[in-house]
Protein backbone atom coordinates (compact mmCIF):
# COMPACT_ATOMS: atom_id res chain seq x y z
CA UNK A 1 0.00 0.00 0.00
CA UNK A 2 3.01 2.30 0.60
CA UNK A 3 3.57 2.48 -3.17
CA UNK A 4 0.16 4.03 -3.69
CA UNK A 5 -0.26 6.11 -0.55
CA UNK A 6 2.08 8.81 0.74
CA UNK A 7 1.97 11.22 3.66
CA UNK A 8 -0.74 13.39 2.08
CA UNK A 9 -2.95 10.35 1.43
CA UNK A 10 -2.64 8.96 4.94
CA UNK A 11 -3.16 12.40 6.45
CA UNK A 12 -6.26 12.93 4.28
CA UNK A 13 -7.74 9.66 5.55
CA UNK A 14 -6.94 10.58 9.16
CA UNK A 15 -8.33 14.11 8.96
CA UNK A 16 -11.47 13.11 7.03
CA UNK A 17 -12.20 10.41 9.65
CA UNK A 18 -11.83 12.85 12.55
CA UNK A 19 -13.64 15.75 10.82
CA UNK A 20 -16.35 13.42 9.53
CA UNK A 21 -16.94 12.08 13.02
CA UNK A 22 -17.11 15.62 14.41
CA UNK A 23 -19.48 17.22 11.89
CA UNK A 24 -21.71 14.40 10.68
CA UNK A 25 -25.23 14.28 12.21
CA UNK A 26 -25.53 11.70 14.99
CA UNK A 27 -27.88 9.38 13.05
CA UNK A 28 -25.25 8.96 10.33
CA UNK A 29 -22.41 8.17 12.70
CA UNK A 30 -22.73 4.37 12.27
CA UNK A 31 -22.19 4.87 8.52
CA UNK A 32 -19.07 6.97 9.14
CA UNK A 33 -17.77 4.34 11.56
CA UNK A 34 -18.50 1.62 8.99
CA UNK A 35 -16.60 3.46 6.25
CA UNK A 36 -13.68 4.17 8.62
CA UNK A 37 -13.45 0.52 9.67
CA UNK A 38 -13.62 -0.66 6.05
CA UNK A 39 -10.93 1.77 4.90
CA UNK A 40 -8.71 0.92 7.88
CA UNK A 41 -9.19 -2.81 7.32
CA UNK A 42 -8.09 -2.35 3.69
CA UNK A 43 -5.23 0.13 4.26
CA UNK A 44 -3.80 -0.65 7.69
CA UNK A 45 -5.17 -4.00 8.93
CA UNK A 46 -2.41 -4.25 11.56
CA UNK A 47 -4.26 -1.58 13.55
CA UNK A 48 -6.98 -4.01 14.61
CA UNK A 49 -4.56 -6.37 16.34
CA UNK A 50 -3.12 -3.49 18.36
CA UNK A 51 -6.64 -2.36 19.32
CA UNK A 52 -7.68 -5.67 20.87
CA UNK A 53 -6.46 -4.73 24.34
CA UNK A 54 -8.20 -4.83 27.68
CA UNK A 55 -7.43 -1.19 28.53
CA UNK A 56 -9.16 0.08 25.38
CA UNK A 57 -12.22 -2.01 26.22
CA UNK A 58 -12.28 -0.68 29.79
CA UNK A 59 -11.93 2.89 28.51
CA UNK A 60 -14.78 2.49 26.00
CA UNK A 61 -17.01 0.97 28.71
CA UNK A 62 -16.13 3.70 31.23
CA UNK A 63 -17.03 6.46 28.79
CA UNK A 64 -20.03 4.96 27.06
CA UNK A 65 -21.93 3.15 29.85
CA UNK A 66 -22.71 6.07 32.26
CA UNK A 67 -24.91 7.97 29.74
CA UNK A 68 -27.18 4.90 29.51
CA UNK A 69 -28.32 5.64 33.05
CA UNK A 70 -27.68 9.40 33.25
CA UNK A 71 -28.97 10.88 29.97
CA UNK A 72 -32.74 11.13 29.44
CA UNK A 73 -35.60 9.40 31.26
CA UNK A 74 -35.21 5.83 32.46
CA UNK A 75 -38.01 4.58 30.19
CA UNK A 76 -37.00 0.94 29.65
CA UNK A 77 -35.76 -1.94 31.72
CA UNK A 78 -33.92 -5.18 31.16
CA UNK A 79 -33.79 -7.89 33.85
CA UNK A 80 -35.04 -5.36 36.38
CA UNK A 81 -32.40 -2.72 35.57
CA UNK A 82 -33.91 0.52 34.29
CA UNK A 83 -32.14 2.37 31.51
CA UNK A 84 -32.78 5.26 29.16
CA UNK A 85 -33.28 4.56 25.45
CA UNK A 86 -31.93 8.04 24.67
CA UNK A 87 -28.91 7.34 26.87
CA UNK A 88 -28.36 4.00 25.15
CA UNK A 89 -28.17 5.73 21.76
CA UNK A 90 -25.83 8.32 23.25
CA UNK A 91 -23.62 5.54 24.70
CA UNK A 92 -23.43 3.78 21.33
CA UNK A 93 -22.45 7.06 19.67
CA UNK A 94 -19.70 7.65 22.24
CA UNK A 95 -18.35 4.11 21.74
CA UNK A 96 -18.34 4.57 17.95
CA UNK A 97 -16.57 7.90 18.20
CA UNK A 98 -13.86 6.48 20.48
CA UNK A 99 -13.43 3.58 18.06
CA UNK A 100 -13.02 5.98 15.11
CA UNK A 101 -10.48 8.10 17.02
CA UNK A 102 -8.49 5.04 18.06
CA UNK A 103 -8.46 3.52 14.56
CA UNK A 104 -7.55 6.84 12.90
CA UNK A 105 -4.72 7.72 15.28
CA UNK A 106 -3.25 4.21 15.35
CA UNK A 107 -3.55 4.00 11.57
CA UNK A 108 -1.79 7.32 10.99
CA UNK A 109 1.02 6.70 13.45
CA UNK A 110 1.66 3.18 12.17
CA UNK A 111 1.82 4.28 8.50
CA UNK A 112 3.50 7.70 8.55
CA UNK A 113 6.79 8.53 10.22
CA UNK A 114 7.31 11.67 12.27
CA UNK A 115 9.81 13.20 9.80
CA UNK A 116 7.20 13.15 7.01
CA UNK A 117 4.76 15.12 9.16
CA UNK A 118 7.59 17.52 10.03
CA UNK A 119 8.36 17.87 6.32
CA UNK A 120 4.74 18.71 5.60
CA UNK A 121 4.67 21.35 8.34
CA UNK A 122 7.95 22.79 7.05
CA UNK A 123 6.33 23.25 3.66
CA UNK A 124 3.44 24.94 5.45
CA UNK A 125 5.78 27.59 6.88
CA UNK A 126 7.34 26.17 10.04
CA UNK A 127 10.91 26.32 8.71
CA UNK A 128 13.45 24.37 10.73
CA UNK A 129 10.83 22.14 12.35
CA UNK A 130 12.41 19.03 10.85
CA UNK A 131 15.79 19.89 12.40
CA UNK A 132 14.22 20.76 15.76
CA UNK A 133 12.11 17.62 15.79
CA UNK A 134 15.14 15.49 14.98
CA UNK A 135 17.09 17.13 17.81
CA UNK A 136 14.12 16.74 20.18
CA UNK A 137 13.73 13.05 19.42
CA UNK A 138 17.45 12.43 19.92
CA UNK A 139 17.37 14.41 23.14
CA UNK A 140 14.47 12.50 24.72
CA UNK A 141 16.57 9.67 26.25
CA UNK A 142 19.30 12.11 27.37
CA UNK A 143 16.82 14.43 29.04
CA UNK A 144 15.03 11.52 30.69
CA UNK A 145 18.30 10.15 32.06
CA UNK A 146 19.43 13.57 33.26
CA UNK A 147 16.05 14.19 34.93
CA UNK A 148 16.19 10.82 36.67
CA UNK A 149 19.74 11.46 37.88
CA UNK A 150 18.85 14.92 39.18
CA UNK A 151 15.76 13.55 40.96
CA UNK A 152 17.71 10.68 42.55
CA UNK A 153 20.54 12.89 43.77
CA UNK A 154 18.03 15.34 45.22
CA UNK A 155 16.17 12.47 46.90
CA UNK A 156 19.32 10.85 48.29
CA UNK A 157 20.59 14.10 49.76
CA UNK A 158 17.27 14.62 51.52
CA UNK A 159 16.54 17.70 49.45
CA UNK A 160 12.82 17.08 49.58
CA UNK A 161 12.55 16.92 53.39
CA UNK A 162 12.88 20.64 53.95
CA UNK A 163 12.20 23.55 51.60
CA UNK A 164 10.44 21.37 49.05
CA UNK A 165 9.46 24.31 46.88
CA UNK A 166 13.08 25.44 46.57
CA UNK A 167 14.19 21.88 45.90
CA UNK A 168 11.69 21.46 43.08
CA UNK A 169 12.78 24.76 41.56
CA UNK A 170 16.39 23.66 41.68
CA UNK A 171 15.43 20.34 40.12
CA UNK A 172 13.75 22.19 37.24
CA UNK A 173 16.79 24.45 36.81
CA UNK A 174 19.17 21.45 36.77
CA UNK A 175 17.10 19.69 34.09
CA UNK A 176 16.89 22.88 32.00
CA UNK A 177 20.64 23.53 32.31
CA UNK A 178 21.53 19.98 31.26
CA UNK A 179 19.17 20.18 28.30
CA UNK A 180 20.41 23.60 27.23
CA UNK A 181 24.07 22.63 27.40
CA UNK A 182 23.28 19.59 25.24
CA UNK A 183 21.45 21.89 22.79
CA UNK A 184 24.50 24.13 22.71
CA UNK A 185 26.69 21.16 21.77
CA UNK A 186 24.27 20.12 19.02
CA UNK A 187 24.04 23.65 17.62
CA UNK A 188 27.85 23.95 17.59
CA UNK A 189 28.21 20.58 15.88
CA UNK A 190 25.64 21.58 13.26
CA UNK A 191 27.30 24.95 12.64
CA UNK A 192 30.74 23.34 12.34
CA UNK A 193 29.27 21.14 9.58
CA UNK A 194 28.07 24.34 7.87
CA UNK A 195 24.43 23.58 8.58
CA UNK A 196 22.14 26.52 8.18
CA UNK A 197 18.36 26.25 8.58
CA UNK A 198 17.88 28.82 5.82
CA UNK A 199 19.73 26.80 3.21
CA UNK A 200 18.93 23.30 4.44
CA UNK A 201 16.54 21.16 2.42
CA UNK A 202 13.14 20.46 3.95
CA UNK A 203 12.47 16.99 5.30
CA UNK A 204 11.30 14.67 2.51
CA UNK A 205 7.60 13.95 2.18
CA UNK A 206 6.69 10.42 1.15
CA UNK A 207 4.61 10.60 -2.03
CA UNK A 208 2.16 8.05 -3.36
CA UNK A 209 0.39 7.60 -6.70
CA UNK A 210 -3.07 7.89 -5.21
CA UNK A 211 -2.46 10.78 -2.78
CA UNK A 212 -4.48 13.43 -4.57
CA UNK A 213 -7.22 10.99 -5.55
CA UNK A 214 -7.57 9.92 -1.91
CA UNK A 215 -7.57 13.56 -0.77
CA UNK A 216 -10.35 14.44 -3.25
CA UNK A 217 -12.32 11.34 -2.32
CA UNK A 218 -11.96 12.09 1.40
CA UNK A 219 -13.29 15.62 0.95
CA UNK A 220 -16.18 14.35 -1.19
CA UNK A 221 -17.10 11.61 1.30
CA UNK A 222 -17.19 14.07 4.23
CA UNK A 223 -19.27 16.54 2.18
CA UNK A 224 -21.56 13.70 1.12
CA UNK A 225 -22.18 12.56 4.68
CA UNK A 226 -22.90 16.09 5.85
CA UNK A 227 -24.92 17.60 3.01
CA UNK A 228 -26.68 14.81 1.07
CA UNK A 229 -30.12 14.44 2.65
Amino acid at each position, binding site marked *: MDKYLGTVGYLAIFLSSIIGMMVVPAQRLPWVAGVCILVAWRIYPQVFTSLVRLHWLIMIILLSVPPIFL*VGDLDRSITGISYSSEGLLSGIQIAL*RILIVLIS*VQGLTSSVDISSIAGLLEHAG*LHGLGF*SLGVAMNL*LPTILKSAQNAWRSLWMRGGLRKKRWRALRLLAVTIFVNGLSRAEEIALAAEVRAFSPNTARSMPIKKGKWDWTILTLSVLVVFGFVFIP
Partner: protein
Amino acid sequence: MKLSTRELATLAVFGALWGLVEISLGSVLKTIHFPLSGVVLSVIGLIIALVGRVFVPRRGSTLFIGVIATLLKLFSLGGVIIGPMVGILTEAIMAEIVLSIPGKQRRAVFIMAGALGVAWVLLQPFVTGPLLFGRTIFTVWLDLLDLGKKLLGLNPSFAAWIVGGLLVIHLAIGGLAGWLSWDIAKLLQNRLGRPVQGF
Protein backbone atom coordinates in the same frame (compact mmCIF):
# COMPACT_ATOMS: atom_id res chain seq x y z
CA MET B 1 9.82 33.18 11.04
CA LYS B 2 13.49 32.39 10.35
CA LEU B 3 15.36 30.97 13.30
CA SER B 4 19.08 30.32 13.71
CA THR B 5 20.52 26.86 14.34
CA ARG B 6 21.08 27.71 17.99
CA GLU B 7 17.53 28.94 18.43
CA LEU B 8 16.14 25.82 16.76
CA ALA B 9 18.20 23.57 19.04
CA THR B 10 17.06 25.54 22.09
CA LEU B 11 13.40 25.24 21.04
CA ALA B 12 13.97 21.52 20.47
CA VAL B 13 15.10 21.14 24.10
CA PHE B 14 12.01 22.85 25.45
CA GLY B 15 9.71 20.98 23.05
CA ALA B 16 11.34 17.69 24.06
CA LEU B 17 10.88 18.53 27.74
CA TRP B 18 7.18 19.34 27.31
CA GLY B 19 6.71 16.26 25.14
CA LEU B 20 8.50 14.08 27.67
CA VAL B 21 6.32 15.36 30.51
CA GLU B 22 3.18 14.65 28.47
CA ILE B 23 4.35 11.20 27.38
CA SER B 24 5.66 9.96 30.73
CA LEU B 25 3.92 11.85 33.53
CA GLY B 26 0.77 12.45 31.45
CA SER B 27 0.20 8.77 30.76
CA VAL B 28 0.80 7.87 34.43
CA LEU B 29 -1.52 10.57 35.80
CA LYS B 30 -4.31 9.70 33.35
CA THR B 31 -3.98 5.99 34.10
CA ILE B 32 -4.27 6.43 37.87
CA HIS B 33 -7.05 9.05 37.39
CA PHE B 34 -5.09 11.62 39.37
CA PRO B 35 -7.37 14.53 40.34
CA LEU B 36 -6.79 17.66 38.26
CA SER B 37 -4.16 15.86 36.17
CA GLY B 38 -4.91 18.24 33.29
CA VAL B 39 -4.02 21.23 35.45
CA VAL B 40 -0.77 19.61 36.66
CA LEU B 41 0.33 18.81 33.11
CA SER B 42 -0.73 22.18 31.81
CA VAL B 43 1.22 23.99 34.57
CA ILE B 44 4.41 22.02 33.91
CA GLY B 45 4.02 22.38 30.14
CA LEU B 46 3.41 26.11 30.30
CA ILE B 47 6.35 26.68 32.66
CA ILE B 48 8.58 24.91 30.12
CA ALA B 49 7.12 26.86 27.17
CA LEU B 50 7.37 30.22 28.95
CA VAL B 51 10.97 29.64 30.04
CA GLY B 52 11.64 28.67 26.43
CA ARG B 53 10.19 31.99 25.32
CA VAL B 54 12.73 33.85 27.44
CA PHE B 55 15.57 32.00 25.73
CA VAL B 56 14.17 32.48 22.22
CA PRO B 57 12.33 35.81 22.46
CA ARG B 58 10.86 35.66 18.96
CA ARG B 59 7.24 35.66 17.82
CA GLY B 60 6.04 32.12 17.27
CA SER B 61 8.65 30.43 19.45
CA THR B 62 6.10 29.30 22.08
CA LEU B 63 3.89 27.86 19.36
CA PHE B 64 6.94 26.13 17.87
CA ILE B 65 7.63 24.47 21.24
CA GLY B 66 3.98 23.41 21.42
CA VAL B 67 4.07 21.91 17.91
CA ILE B 68 7.18 19.84 18.79
CA ALA B 69 5.53 18.59 22.00
CA THR B 70 2.30 17.79 20.10
CA LEU B 71 4.14 15.78 17.45
CA LEU B 72 6.09 13.87 20.10
CA LYS B 73 2.81 13.10 21.87
CA LEU B 74 1.19 12.00 18.58
CA PHE B 75 3.87 9.43 17.98
CA SER B 76 3.97 8.17 21.56
CA LEU B 77 2.36 4.94 22.66
CA GLY B 78 -0.83 4.49 24.65
CA GLY B 79 -4.01 6.33 25.50
CA VAL B 80 -6.38 8.44 23.44
CA ILE B 81 -3.95 11.16 22.48
CA ILE B 82 -6.24 13.49 20.54
CA GLY B 83 -7.45 15.25 23.70
CA PRO B 84 -3.96 15.95 25.10
CA MET B 85 -2.77 16.98 21.63
CA VAL B 86 -5.56 19.53 21.33
CA GLY B 87 -4.72 20.66 24.88
CA ILE B 88 -1.00 21.16 24.22
CA LEU B 89 -1.57 23.00 20.97
CA THR B 90 -4.32 25.26 22.34
CA GLU B 91 -2.32 26.14 25.44
CA ALA B 92 0.67 26.98 23.24
CA ILE B 93 -1.50 29.11 20.93
CA MET B 94 -3.07 30.98 23.88
CA ALA B 95 0.32 31.63 25.48
CA GLU B 96 1.72 32.72 22.11
CA ILE B 97 -1.12 35.20 21.52
CA VAL B 98 -0.73 36.75 24.99
CA LEU B 99 3.06 36.94 24.67
CA SER B 100 2.93 38.41 21.17
CA ILE B 101 0.66 41.35 22.02
CA PRO B 102 3.16 43.45 24.04
CA GLY B 103 6.55 44.02 22.51
CA LYS B 104 8.66 43.55 25.64
CA GLN B 105 8.72 40.55 27.94
CA ARG B 106 7.41 41.27 31.40
CA ARG B 107 6.48 39.19 34.41
CA ALA B 108 2.87 40.39 34.17
CA VAL B 109 2.58 39.11 30.61
CA PHE B 110 3.98 35.74 31.67
CA ILE B 111 1.44 35.57 34.50
CA MET B 112 -1.39 36.34 32.09
CA ALA B 113 -0.16 33.78 29.56
CA GLY B 114 0.06 31.12 32.28
CA ALA B 115 -3.37 31.99 33.69
CA LEU B 116 -5.13 31.82 30.32
CA GLY B 117 -3.31 28.63 29.35
CA VAL B 118 -4.37 26.82 32.53
CA ALA B 119 -7.92 28.24 32.33
CA TRP B 120 -8.24 26.43 29.01
CA VAL B 121 -8.11 23.12 30.93
CA LEU B 122 -11.50 24.04 32.41
CA LEU B 123 -13.00 24.84 29.02
CA GLN B 124 -11.47 22.05 26.97
CA PRO B 125 -14.00 19.31 27.90
CA PHE B 126 -16.79 21.53 26.55
CA VAL B 127 -15.04 21.56 23.17
CA THR B 128 -13.46 18.12 22.86
CA GLY B 129 -16.21 16.25 24.75
CA PRO B 130 -19.05 16.95 22.29
CA LEU B 131 -16.86 17.16 19.18
CA LEU B 132 -14.63 14.15 19.69
CA PHE B 133 -16.48 11.84 22.03
CA GLY B 134 -20.11 12.78 21.38
CA ARG B 135 -20.71 13.68 25.01
CA THR B 136 -23.49 16.16 25.55
CA ILE B 137 -22.69 19.59 26.96
CA PHE B 138 -25.04 18.65 29.81
CA THR B 139 -22.91 15.60 30.78
CA VAL B 140 -19.74 17.70 30.69
CA TRP B 141 -21.52 20.34 32.77
CA LEU B 142 -22.53 17.69 35.34
CA ASP B 143 -18.92 16.50 35.51
CA LEU B 144 -17.80 20.07 36.12
CA LEU B 145 -20.33 20.53 38.93
CA ASP B 146 -19.22 17.22 40.42
CA LEU B 147 -15.60 18.39 40.34
CA GLY B 148 -16.64 21.64 41.99
CA LYS B 149 -18.56 19.73 44.66
CA LYS B 150 -15.50 17.60 45.45
CA LEU B 151 -13.02 20.48 45.38
CA LEU B 152 -15.00 23.30 46.92
CA GLY B 153 -17.52 21.33 48.96
CA LEU B 154 -20.37 23.32 47.42
CA ASN B 155 -23.82 21.97 46.62
CA PRO B 156 -24.32 21.55 42.82
CA SER B 157 -27.26 23.97 43.01
CA PHE B 158 -24.72 26.78 43.50
CA ALA B 159 -23.60 26.33 39.88
CA ALA B 160 -22.46 29.90 39.32
CA TRP B 161 -20.34 29.86 42.49
CA ILE B 162 -18.80 26.53 41.51
CA VAL B 163 -17.90 27.72 38.00
CA GLY B 164 -16.59 31.03 39.33
CA GLY B 165 -14.59 29.30 42.05
CA LEU B 166 -13.07 26.78 39.64
CA LEU B 167 -12.21 29.52 37.17
CA VAL B 168 -10.50 31.58 39.88
CA ILE B 169 -8.55 28.51 41.05
CA HIS B 170 -7.42 27.72 37.49
CA LEU B 171 -6.47 31.33 36.78
CA ALA B 172 -4.57 31.58 40.08
CA ILE B 173 -2.67 28.34 39.48
CA GLY B 174 -1.86 29.45 35.93
CA GLY B 175 -0.74 32.86 37.13
CA LEU B 176 1.51 31.18 39.67
CA ALA B 177 2.96 29.05 36.86
CA GLY B 178 3.70 32.23 34.89
CA TRP B 179 5.31 33.85 37.94
CA LEU B 180 7.40 30.75 38.59
CA SER B 181 8.52 30.47 34.98
CA TRP B 182 9.84 34.04 35.11
CA ASP B 183 11.80 33.18 38.29
CA ILE B 184 13.16 29.96 36.82
CA ALA B 185 14.23 31.81 33.68
CA LYS B 186 16.08 34.34 35.89
CA LEU B 187 17.74 31.55 37.86
CA LEU B 188 18.75 29.86 34.63
CA GLN B 189 20.19 33.09 33.33
CA ASN B 190 22.35 33.38 36.43
CA ARG B 191 23.39 29.74 36.31
CA LEU B 192 24.31 29.81 32.63
CA GLY B 193 25.80 33.28 32.74
CA ARG B 194 23.99 33.90 29.49
CA PRO B 195 22.46 37.32 28.85
CA VAL B 196 18.79 36.88 28.16
CA GLN B 197 16.64 39.64 26.70
CA GLY B 198 13.89 41.03 28.87
CA PHE B 199 15.60 41.11 32.26
